């Protein structure tokens, strides 16, 4: 076991543990904060895997923006401080679906790689990532940007208020 392995395992445990807390805690806002921990741990895993840029982008986008937006929305509701007693979530189906997917993926990956080792690639610098994205992955990239653009246009179309028209 190298240091990287230990770090990897520890961060993975943190990520999974915090993720479990997100769905089990009865504190609404704390669930969002656990999500911060979980996503931060994932960023740490990226770091261990030498994907620096992806790690910081994960931090910037997910912790800095997405979770904050989520927390913002939760706080706008009547989220109580302390445990919320009136949470009614169907627990069992969610456990089945989530656990099943997780187990299935884990089994698939473990079965696929067994004990084969892979050399860590070169550090995932911005330059390499750029070459990859605009080289072999340019089509998915462009498709994604079209998707985001349509989402933006849709958001404007939904929210815009045209004078004279009711709504």
């Amino acid at each position, binding site marked *: 076991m190298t240091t990287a392995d230990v770090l990897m395992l520890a961060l993975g445990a943190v990520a999974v543990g915090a993720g479990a807390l997100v769905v089990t805690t009865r504190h609404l*806002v704390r669930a969002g904060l656990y999500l911060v921990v979980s996503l931060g741990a994932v960023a740490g895993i990226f770091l261990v895997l030498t994907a620096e*840029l992806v790690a*910081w982008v994960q931090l*910037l986008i997910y*912790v800095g923006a997405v979770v*904050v937006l989520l*927390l*913002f929305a939760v*706080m706008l509701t009547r989220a109580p*401080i302390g445990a919320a007693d009136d949470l009614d979530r169907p627990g069992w189906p969610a456990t089945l679906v989530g656990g099943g997917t997780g187990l299935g993926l884990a089994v698939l990956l473990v079965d696929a790689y067994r004990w084969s080792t892979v050399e860590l690639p070169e550090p995932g610098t911005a330059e390499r990532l750029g070459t990859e994205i605009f080289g072999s992955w340019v089509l998915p990239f462009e498709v994604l940007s079209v998707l985001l653009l349509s989402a933006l246009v849709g958001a404007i179309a939904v929210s815009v208020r045209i004078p004279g028209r009711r709504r």
Partner: protein
Amino acid sequence: MPVWLELVVRVVGVVAAFLVLPLVVGQAEHKVMAHMQGRLGPMYAGGFHGWAQLIADGVKFVQKEDVTPREADRAVFRLAPVVALVPYLLALLVIPLGPNDLVGQPLDIGLFFVLAVVGVGVVAVLMSAWASANKYSLLGGLRGAAQLLGYELPLVLAAASVAMAAGTLSLPGIVEAWRPWWLLWQAPAMLVFFVAGLAEIRRPPFDMPVADSELVFGYMTEYTGLRFAFFLLAEYVGIVVIAALTTVLFLGGWQGPFGDAYLGWLWTLIKVFLVSFVIIWLRVSYPRLREDQLQRLCWLVLVPVALGQLVLTAGVRLAIA
């Protein structure tokens, strides 16, 4: 020099900067603000023109009672000041002071690192706001979240412009690529970055989240003693970080009129303090923006300007290359 010794020296250097620079900026704020208002400011602590005022303040904060409201979410409430402070400490780690690796930790994508880490500070605002169990805190937190989310966009876009111009995401790399004429064609990006940075650290005139005349003290209302001091320290480290980033990205960092190789650290410090002075100056001169003016400025002025600057930068880069 063995690796561990070098590491220790670097960490000690960053921690020293983390502790000293905010105090210097804070003291400068006391004195500059006082003189801009025709006052003298602190005159007694330490003997000579009150130089030890902030140290005395620190001692005072330590002595105060550490109050946690009964209704508060204790764990989150107590953790928030630390979450507010640590990102800036990490950001200081990668900001270069001079050439030849005079930096806490040279990082290939330092720019992204700094932006990501500074963005985490929002979480602290939300944590403290919600955990305080106080309506003023919550209002302040909501304002803060809306403000920080909005202004992160022009901040990142303006930084991206200069990164595109330099062709690298490394902060020392950007300084090395910087030329004096960049002052001209990166000026809009610099303005956008500086204004958005002011909003990111919630300094007046962008201090709606703490707006003491409306919201008591916003998300910091319930904090006392050392935890409150942490928030204050975070604010001043924030000034240092934003000033240093503006210096490094747009003002040429260690590049000075002469002797860059051995006087670089001095040029950087001078520029950082000049930008800090401007930040203090703006605080004294301008009234606080209203909440809707704030969002309007962000989305209707800063973002379009930043996008235009991106197009300009890309065009010039292509023309040169």
